[in-house]
């Protein structure tokens, strides 16, 4: 085809593209398409296989504990890898375990992962790894954080790691003279109720004391105050006296592994932060056991914490004439600015006694000072309740002012103020400017009278709490104010 066979004219020397006929025919076969497909399939299979085989990691252990090839690596009870082989390390002081992870668990091989061989452990408060008593041993993993860098060589732990405390728990350390039977994991009790546990018991750096690192569960962290006391309740106390034999032990676990009991005084100090150090006493003093603090803890607080009224100080000043002299008098408590611009407080806070000299009264709050002409007292409740009887005199007043209130004063939504005290008593919280001073009062400690709620005498409410707003734990509405008068504590409206 390329070469003209017969040409009438003498051949003109033209450059002819000469392809090798053999090669071109060689490639003419349609079977080459199949070759291409096969090549793609081959590559595809390699790719697929790579996707489906997990990475190989090595873990160095000091001790094999009877681990065998094909034993599992488990996490949360499922297999995420298998031991491929185990060998002695070159220095003969440990073993190296080769583990093949499953493809999905590839991210487990990252910096910070902890491995240990699970074997039966009989400790006092728990029996761990019982499944390994008869079955095969397995390797357990404490996974690394999500963004950790990938890694393929690990050093395994000799035993299960100390369980790291839950997020948000309060870590404190207790110094004791002697270990006194305390074990890792022993409970910390408040009124016999577990609020945390010992993470680790060890000697202090200078070996002068025994230090117990404790974690208090997040919901109970507000029970631990600066002035809390801790004492060792380890083991049992056997008292043998005239009255007979007295065995004192709380729970079996505590009897065996020891425990720490704590109490917070009836006037709780501010909460502590992580790292706080307490002394661990051998036994409680008698009055510690009678302390009855009212503290908000757990979910009640976390639900309301961001949502508590912020009372501010208010003072009423006036002048009186006594023995012919003008004397300055003042009365101070708390008030609650509302979003509609009015201010709620005890009505005694807005009206000076009759003995006051005319035009000498002044209200001061949030850096504003108001003369009588500058504020307008209005009553909170409707007219109907006012004229019903003399008894139901308004204890809580509302006033408005033409003077600007500083903008940095937090205001409580006006629609979240109840019109009157609820018909039945409920759990309440006394709001305080300082969140750690918030006091909770259980409904059982409240008694309803015809006009107000009386607070049980056992509940310690400081004199300074006079005039603080009270929030219902159920509806989180402001339902009244604290009124302390002649030692009687009331919630009034």
């Amino acid at each position, binding site marked *: 085809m390329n070469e003209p066979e017969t040409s009438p004219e003498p051949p003109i020397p033209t450059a002819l593209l000469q392809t090798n006929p053999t*090669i071109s*025919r060689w490639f003419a*076969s349609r*079977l080459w398409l199949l070759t291409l497909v*096969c090549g793609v399939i*081959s590559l595809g*299979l*390699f790719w697929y296989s790579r996707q489906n*085989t997990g990475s190989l990691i090595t873990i160095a252990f000091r001790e094999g504990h009877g681990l065998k090839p*094909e034993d599992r690596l488990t996490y949360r009870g499922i297999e995420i890898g298998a031991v491929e082989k185990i060998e002695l390390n070159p220095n003969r002081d440990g073993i190296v375990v080769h583990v093949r992870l499953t493809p999905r668990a590839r991210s487990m091989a990252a910096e910070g992962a902890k491995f240990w061989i699970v074997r039966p452990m009989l400790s006092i408060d728990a029996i761990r790894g019982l499944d390994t008593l008869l079955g095969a041993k397995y390797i357990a993993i404490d996974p690394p954080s999500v963004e950790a860098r990938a890694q393929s060589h690990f050093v395994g732990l000799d035993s299960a790691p100390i369980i790291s405390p839950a997020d948000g728990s309060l870590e404190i350390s207790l110094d004791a003279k002697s270990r006194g039977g305390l074990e890792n994991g022993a409970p910390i009790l408040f009124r016999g109720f577990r609020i945390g546990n010992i993470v680790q018991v060890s000697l202090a750096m200078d070996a002068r004391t025994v230090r117990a690192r404790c974690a208090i569960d997040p919901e109970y962290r507000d029970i631990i105050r600066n002035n809390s006391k801790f004492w060792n309740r380890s083991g049992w106390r056997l008292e043998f006296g005239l009255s007979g034999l007295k065995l004192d032990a709380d729970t079996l676990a505590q009897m065996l592994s020891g425990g720490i009991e704590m109490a917070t005084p009836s006037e709780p100090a501010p909460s502590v932060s992580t790292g706080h150090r307490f002394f661990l006493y051998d036994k409680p003093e008698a009055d510690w056991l009678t302390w009855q603090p009212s503290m908000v803890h757990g979910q009640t607080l976390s639900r309301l914490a961001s949502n508590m009224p912020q009372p501010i100080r208010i003072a009423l000043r006036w002048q009186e004439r006594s023995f012919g002299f003008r004397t300055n008098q003042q009365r101070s408590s708390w008030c609650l600015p509302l979003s509609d611009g009015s201010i709620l407080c005890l009505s005694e806070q807005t009206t000076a006694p009759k003995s006051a000299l005319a035009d000498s009264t002044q209200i001061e709050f949030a850096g504003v000072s108001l003369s009588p002409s500058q504020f307008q007292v209005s009553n909170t409740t409707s007219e109907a309740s006012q004229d019903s009887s003399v008894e139901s005199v308004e204890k809580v007043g509302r006033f408005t002012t033409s003077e600007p209130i500083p903008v940095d004063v937090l205001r409580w939504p006006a629609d979240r103020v109840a019109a009157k005290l609820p018909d039945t008593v409920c759990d309440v919280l006394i709001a305080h400017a300082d969140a750690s001073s918030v006091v909770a009062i259980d409904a059982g400690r409240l008694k309803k009278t015809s006009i107000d709620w009386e607070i049980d005498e056992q509940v310690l409410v400081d004199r300074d709490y006079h005039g603080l707003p009270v929030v219902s734990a159920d509806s989180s509405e402001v339902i009244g104010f604290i009124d302390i008068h002649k030692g009687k504590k009331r919630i009034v409206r």
Partner: protein
Amino acid sequence: MDIPRNHERSQGRTAAAAIAAVLLFPAAVLLPILEVEQLGHHHQSSILGGILELFRNGNYFIAIVILVFSIVLPLAKILALIELSWLCSLQQRHRAWTYRLMEQIGKWSMMDVMLLAFLVMLIKLSGLVQFHFGPAVIAFVLCVTMSMIAAICFDPHAIWESP
């Protein structure tokens, strides 16, 4: 002109199929071919991995037999076919020699027999252990097919035709 063209076409086909077989060969040998699950233990092995395991366990004889008859000889046969179909580069005598060699190798190349062995195993053991084929099986079957096609397409007359 017709006859040599036929030869050339057959050579093209042979080369295409043989090269396809070569491309599939690594996948067939290196990738896991069997995934056995017995009592919760998962184990997978490739042909080459299995042979290495046999070596490690000291079964040298069986390991060598399998290595030679299912890896070395099949590969040699395919390579010989490619060489034969590559006409231009070879001398006639060399080609004849290669052809005879290939004929001999072909008798001992047992790749297809191995496939049969796997099949028998699947049927016999399916009650005892749970196992499935790995990705290498596809490559293996295709590789056997391709080398067969290459052998069928090959026209020995081409050897004695002068290019």
